[in-house]
Each structure stands twice: as structure tokens, then as C-alpha cells.
């Protein structure tokens, strides 16, 4: 009997204390406290390969931004600093959901930014919706996630699929010799397959003949069969629609098997790819959401933050999406003029915000119209080559070493 009493006593204490844990939080609408933005970052787990330096970067962003005083809140007639609450979602959706619930109910943050990735961008938004907290997701690019009639979510994936290769195709419409044929190789991933679906159609509209589309699984290591088909097709442009890491063996084997083309275009040309394939990357074109040297709104802030946090855009190509989600929320608060969730939600609806890569406009679903710049690897350096107004280097056509 004594034991039973002990159990009941212990569990009552545990339950009550769990329920009463309420750490200090910001009160909305106040003009004296920092604006708290809650987010999770995939610091561990499979997605951490894309994001492991972002915690530091986020903290540095807050520091740098607050140096200018913070967010201008008209109704308070002053600038309020921003503060981040950051948790590690471990790349596990259930964990992310629990953490966002915590931030909503226990930490009581003001607004949400992030998370990234479709796996998390599916389950997490309903939490924001339930608590009526505006959320600007970062790198969540799957359109179906925005199609669910949720009113409190936006996203800043850079770039979005419909705009992904817009500048590239613009470019190849203007180069000479003109390419006639194109072959797609696609990584089995929703974003990449979406890109291929959209851009193979646009390629045809532009007059290019699509000679084939081969899909490969994320774990594939031996591409001999696939490359054999590509070589047989002898297309002018080979369009690699893939995540950088998944394509490392593919690029290496394409070189070994002496694949030839006017250009080999990669939808995710990154520092990680460069480091792993070395010289094989030479001459390839790709897209980047932005690159230091391209001037735009907030570009100085972004450059400083990235330098201090030692994050290279070429290595962590999703960084602009992440940082723009912060910039979007800040601009929304400034536009609303008051630290109020409903007003900020209204301010975000179909808003246009500024970013280092240009203006970003959200449609009624919260889906943006972000795009990318075309880049080319020349002499081991990455150059922005299109549009010519912001280019940091000259395009070499046809691609050297591939012809």
C-alpha cells in the first residue's frame, strides 16, 4: 500500500510540474521586449549535411541586424531587436512538430520562421495554423504543401521550380552555336522531378528536342547503364536535375566514360560537388540563388553574416532561402507597423518583399516566385554568367572540357 501511495504522489507531482513549466516569454504587442522568432534547424540527422552551420549563422544574423537597432515598429515609434529561439529537429518530422508545439505553447514565441525540407514542411504548418501564428517557412519547395488552404504559412525556397532554370533557358536561346537537342537525367526526388517536368516542357516550347529522360534512385552508385543511354543519344545539352551529393558518382563516371556535349547543366552546382569531383566540374553550368558580389537589397547584411558565420553560399546553397525567411518576417512586421500576429498575417498576404536576389512576391497560397542566377565553373571559380547585367564573369560557350 505504501508503494501505491508513493506512485500516486510521485506522478501527481510530476504531472503538475510538467504542466506548470512556463519559461519567460515575450508578450505580443509590447513595445519594450525583443521580437521572438521561433525556428528549428536540422543540426543532426540526415538533413544536417545541408544545414549544420545555420545555428551560428542565425545567431550572428540577429546580432548583425540588431546592430542597426532592430525592426522598425511604427506603432511603438522605435526599433525593437529580434531574438531567435532555436531547436534541433534532428531531421525527424515528429520531433519538429513537438518542438513547434513547444515554441507555441511553452516558449510562447511571437512568430515562426523555418523549418526546411518537405518532410518537415508537410507536418509542421498545421501547428502554426492551429495556434494562428504566421510562419514563413524556409526551404520548402513542394507546391502541394501550399495547396492545403492554410492561411498562416508562406515559404521562401530559392528558387522555386517554375523559375528554376528560367535564366538558363533564356541564356541558351541567345548563345551561338545554338543547341538543338537536350537530354534530362533526373534524381528521384520530388523537387528534381518537378524541375524536369516543368523544364522539359519549356525546353520543347523553346524549340529544343527532348531526346530522353532517365531517372536514377538516390542510392545508385553505378551509372554505367544510364550513361550508356546518354552517350547513345548524343544530345547538345545534358541537363542534370539532381541534388549535388547524389550526382557525385554520376559526374565522375560521366567524365570517365567520356561523355560529350555542348554543355552539361546541373540544377545544383555547389561547393560540395566541386570538392568531391574536383576538376570534373570544370565548364559545367548551374544555378545559384545568389552569390556574393551580386548587389541587391540587404546584400551587405547577408554577406557580412555569411562571412562571420563562415558559411559559403556555394557550399550551403539553401542559405539564401533560410535568410530570406528571416528578412521576409522582418519586413512583414515593419509593414504591419505593430507586433501583432493578425496584422502581420495581413501584411504577408500576397506581399512583395525585398531580398539580395531581387524582389519576392507571394501568391495567395504563400508560394513565392523566387528565381536563380545562371553560373558557370571556370578555372575552378564559380562565376555568375546570366543575366549579363549582374554577371561576375564571362560565359564560355560551348562549355570547355565537355566538347
Amino acid at each position, binding site marked *: *500500500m505504501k*508503494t*501505491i501511495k*508513493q*506512485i*500516486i504522489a510521485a*506522478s501527481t507531482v510530476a*504531472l503538475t510540474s*510538467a*504542466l506548470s513549466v512556463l519559461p519567460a516569454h515575450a508578450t505580443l504587442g509590447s513595445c519594450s521586449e525583443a521580437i521572438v522568432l521561433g525556428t528549428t534547424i536540422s*543540426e*543532426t*540527422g*540526415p538533413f544536417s549535411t545541408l544545414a549544420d552551420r545555420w545555428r551560428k549563422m542565425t545567431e550572428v544574423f540577429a546580432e548583425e541586424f540588431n546592430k542597426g537597432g532592430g525592426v522598425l515598429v511604427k506603432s511603438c515609434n522605435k526599433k525593437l531587436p529580434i531574438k531567435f529561439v532555436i*531547436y*534541433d529537429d*534532428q*531531421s*525527424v*518530422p*515528429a*520531433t519538429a*512538430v*513537438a*518542438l513547434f*508545439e*513547444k515554441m*507555441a*505553447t*511553452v516558449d510562447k514565441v511571437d512568430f515562426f520562421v523555418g523549418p526546411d525540407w*518537405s*518532410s518537415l514542411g*508537410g*507536418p509542421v*504548418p*498545421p*501547428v502554426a*495554423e*492551429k*495556434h494562428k501564428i504566421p510562419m514563413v517557412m524556409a526551404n520548402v519547395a*513542394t507546391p*502541394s*504543401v501550399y*495547396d*492545403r*488552404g*492554410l492561411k498562416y504559412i508562406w515559404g521562401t525556397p530559392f528558387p522555386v521550380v517554375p523559375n528554376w532554370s528560367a535564366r538558363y533557358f533564356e541564356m541558351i536561346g541567345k548563345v551561338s552555336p545554338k543547341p538543338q537537342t537536350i537530354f534530362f537525367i533526373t534524381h*528521384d*526526388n*520530388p523537387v528534381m*522531378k518537378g524541375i524536369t517536368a516543368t523544364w522539359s516542357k519549356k525546353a520543347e516550347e523553346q524549340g529544343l528536342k527532348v531526346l530522353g529522360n532517365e531517372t536514377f*534512385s*538516390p542510392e545508385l552508385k553505378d551509372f554505367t547503364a544510364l550513361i550508356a543511354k546518354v552517350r547513345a543519344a548524343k544530345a547538345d545539352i545534358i541537363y542534370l536535375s539532381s541534388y549535388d551529393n547524389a550526382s557525385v558518382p554520376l559526374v565522375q563516371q560521366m567524365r570517365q566514360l567520356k561523355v560529350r556535349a555542348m554543355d552539361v547543366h546541373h540544377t545544383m552546382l555547389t561547393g560540395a560537388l566541386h570538392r568531391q569531383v574536383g576538376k570534373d566540374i570544370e565548364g559545367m553550368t548551374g544555378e545559384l540563388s545568389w552569390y556574393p558580389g551580386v548587389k541587391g537589397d540587404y546584400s551587405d547584411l547577408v554577406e557580412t553574416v555569411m562571412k562571420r558565420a563562415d558559411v559559403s553560399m556555394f557550399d550551403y546553397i539553401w542559405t539564401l532561402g533560410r535568410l530570406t525567411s528571416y528578412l521576409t518576417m522582418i519586413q512583414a512586421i515593419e509593414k504591419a507597423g505593430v507586433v501583432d500576429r493578425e496584422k502581420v498575417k495581413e501584411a504577408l498576404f500576397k506581399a512583395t518583399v525585398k531580398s539580395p536576389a531581387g524582389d519576392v512576391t507571394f501568391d495567395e497560397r504563400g508560394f513565392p516566385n523566387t528565381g536563380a542566377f545562371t553560373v558557370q565553373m571556370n578555372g575552378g571559380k564559380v562565376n555568375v554568367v546570366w543575366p549579363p547585367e549582374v554577371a561576375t564573369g564571362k560565359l564560355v560557350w560551348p562549355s570547355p572540357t565537355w566538347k
Partner: protein
Amino acid sequence: MKHGMSRTAGWLTGGAGVLALAVLPFVGNAYITTIAFTVLIAYILGQSWDWVAGEMGYVNLGHYCFYGIGAYAFSIALVGQWPLVVAIGFAVLITALAALVISVPLFRLHGDYFAFGTLALLPLMEVLAYNLTPVTNGADGIVLPVEQVLKPAYLISLGVCVLTFIVTLRINAARFGYALKSIRNDEQVAETVGVRIAPVKRRVLMLSAGFGAVAGALQAWQMSYIDPATVFGLNVALVPVAMVLFAGSGLRWGPLVGVLVLATLQQWLLVSVKGFQATLYGLIVLLIGRFMPGGFLRARWVRRVPLLSALAREHHEYMGESDAQAALQVAKDGTAVALPLPRIQPESGKPLIELQNVCMQFGGNVAVNDVSLSIRQGEIVGLIGPNGSGKTTLFNCISRVYTPTGGRVMFAGQDLSQASRDEIARLGVGRTYQIPRPFGDLTVQENIAIPLMFNEAPLSPRDAMREARSFIEYAELSHRLRDRADSLSVQERKALEFARALACKPRLLLVDEVASGLTPVEVQRFVEHIRHVRDRYGITVIWVEHIFSALEKVVDRVIVLEQGSLIADGPLSQVVKDERVLSTYLGSAAQASTKTKAQKSPQRAEGVV
């Protein structure tokens, strides 16, 4: 007395706990509810895994597959506008069917190979989910309509948790549970005492799959989105397994405690510790594995902490009888214990068991070579021969541990070639093994009770335990009633083995070298037992033995094997003088000397083949 009080108190606490949990979503915040929800799901997964692993001993590392298949089936149904309950039911059905299909190839594997095979299922399912795009939407995943379902999902999963716990209790109190436990200990022996192992394995896998599917469906519902990596990912697949193993697999409270402790720990690490959470978590798992591998509830220090020791009780400690029942006297039959065995009358004319040209060949090695013999009901027949002559193999042919490569075994007029091992046991063939093979982690009482639960007239576990006591008394093991069988001495194990064979209520008892290693007094006791079971109950006995002094007191006749062939069959006194027998045992010199003796004496050695 103490038992009964704890039981009521236990139920009250349990009920209070469930009530507290049910109220949680209404009084607590959404964060606590979400955490509690993941704990509930983990419990459903962990406990359903433990039915196959802890109870039956098959470590299914791919259990998460059932979670994933359930999640997908549910999501597809829900997107197709089916009502919630139908969608969940659909998920359970599909997953159970998948379990049924996969069980056929999978249960051909045992031990580590079973673990490999099941582990490999996860990446296979992930590829299927990625590639069967028309059905699963491939890498895009399935987006479910967004409804704020945390509270209903939580409450339903709480209900399922309670159900899972109740199912665990029911399994352990039922014959099904004992079938599982006997398989865990020794599958082959389980079959020869009458347990039908194939249907049992299938059923437990399907049951486990069904509950795993519900966990997947409920979590998919709450998250409103699934994709292949989320539900089949290797990074989360072993988590429920680790949680159960952490506290103690096969214990009543093991899965629950393990899930609670590790899930809480994980959450705490996540929000309180900056960096190195995975390292700390992994370190804790590692240390438990190194120092308390049975789970921390089985560690010795736990016995001293009152609350924990209550949680650490093994299932069989709940099955024991109360002191009042234990005090009941066993029925006596004169001075001997009365066994609840039928008295078999010998049928004249027809032999009970007949071997017709039985051959058993392993590759090039002929272990049993064209052996024919016939034994009548009520005979005690000794089976002798040098080591390696095929005696145990012959036993194995009769009880179908091996299938003879040639010839027929007829038992009571029935050809055994069509019968399975458990059918043969139920027809009335019981046996002991040369090296005793008790069900090690079960008590003496449970060991005897199991055959009683699975023979021709099966008893419920309670009745079987009660009836087992007579056999245990007969074997003079009453003082070890509630001890685990693997804690017995060799002699006690042989007695247990014998009693268990009797508990199969056999017409034919195959006794394999039960006397070796025993003192003369103990040998004499066995001889008495063998004579007694034949005289009193009419059981036919075939006894393999090397100790002739034991045999000669009780056998009617003797059969001699040499290198797989039958070389003599007749009364002991005759057989020991047979030339071939002598040369087999003693070498030709002895044979020669006997011949000389025979020539000198008027008696002639007769060999009967």
C-alpha cells in the same frame, strides 16, 4: 494474501494512470500532448514488437515496416475519402496480409539470419514506396487534408495502448502465450510435445503487424503528411526496439517502462542540452547494453528498490498459484502419486509400433539401414548398441525430428509419414532427450504444464498448472516447483524430462539414456518409474540405455543396433550371448573366447536376427 492486494492496487493505479493520461490533452498544453502522443505510439510499436521478440524469441528488426505499410494504407484510404474507422481498418487488414505473405519465406530463417532478413525489409519497402508512384505518390509523399486532430488521435492511441497492454496480459495467460514461450526456448522440442508452431508464428506476426499498422496510421493522421523516408527510414527504425530492450524485453512492464524512460530522456536532451544529444543518448544505450543487457529491470540492484522490483517481475511470476492452491495435496494411489493418465489396455494381435525397412541417410552417411521391428502395446523394449549405431536417430525417425529417407513407420496402424511432429505427439508418442532439453527460462511447473495444454484433450493454463503438480510430485521435484528449469541440476533435469514426456500422455514412451550420470540409487528410481508406468498405465516403453544392469531388471526384450542395422532382437539373456552383439561391443577376440567357452559348455549361443 499479498498477491491479491497487490493485484487490486495494481489495477487501481493503472486505471488512475490511464484516466490521468486521458485528461491530459484537456488540461495540459499542446506540447505535452504531442510528446505524450509520441510516447503512446512508441509503446504500441514497442510492445507489439515484443510479442514476437520477447515472447517468441524472434528478433524482427524490420518491425517498422508494418508501421510504414499501415501509414501508407491509411493515408491512401483517407485521401480516397474513406471514413476514419474504415481507413484504419483497411490499414490493419493490408498490413496483416502483408505479414502473412512475408511470414512464409521469413520463418524459414532462424536466429541471426532472421534478424538480417527482417532488417533488409526496410530499405526494400523504402524503394517500393519511392517507385510505386501511382499508388504511393513516390518521393512526393502523401499529403493528408489538414485537420486539427491531435486530441482525437491522442485519445484513440491511448485506447489502443490500453488494448495493447490487455492483449499482452491475455497472451501470457493463454495457451497461445505458452506456445510462444516454448518456441522461444526450443522449437523442436515444442513440436514434439504437441505445439503447432507454424500457425502460432504466423498469428503472432500478423497480430504484431496489425498493431504496428495502427501506430503508423494514427501518427500519419496526426502529422498529415508521410513520405518514404519518414516511415521507412533507418534512422528511426531501431528506436522502439532499443526502448524495449533498454528496460527488459519479455517482461510485463518492460516495454512500458523502457518507452517512458527513453522517450522522456530523448525529449529532455533535445530541449535542455545543447549539442551532443545523440552522443549522450547513444552512450546511455551502450552502457545499458554492456552492464544490464537483459534490460535494466533485470539487473540485480533493481530487486532492492521496492517500486522497480514490482515492475521487474517476469510473466511467470504472475501465473503462479496462490499459497492456498499450492497447499492442496496431490492425489495418491496407494503409496505412489496418482497421475492423471489413462490406463491403456493392451490390444492383442496388432503391434503398437512397427518399423518397416526404415532407412535414414544423411548425404553419404547411412545412419539407419533398413531396420524393421515391431513392438506390442505394453512391452518394455531396450534398445542398445555402441555409440553411433543409430539409436537416437531411430528415435528421431519415430518422433519425426528427422523424416526417414526410406521405409515406413506405422503407429497404431497409422502411417506416420503424413503426420507432422506435433500430430505425432498428440497421437501418443512422448520422448526424452539424451541431453535434457527443458524449456530453460520457464518454471518447472510451466514445463510440465505445456504438454498438458497441447495434447489431445487440451487444458487451459490454469488447469494444466494444477494437473502438472501430480507429475512434478511423481518426479520428486515439488520443492522446485516455481524454479526456472535452467537452474536445475542434471539429475533434476532428467527427472523433469521424464515427467514432461509423461505429461504428453503417451501410449509410447521413448526414453533416451536417462540413467547415465546418475548414482545407482537414482538409477533404481528410474527403473521403478519405468516399470510403474507400464504396469499401472500400460505405457509402452522403448529405452535406449548403456547400463545393462538397469535394463535387465525391467525389459521384456532387447533390440541391438550396429552401424544403423538391426543385428539382434530378443530376450536380454539371449541377446548378450549373440556372436554379432559380442563382437560389436567387445571386439572379435572376445567373441572368439566366448565361442571357445560355448564349445566347452553345452549351451549354444543363438543369434536371432
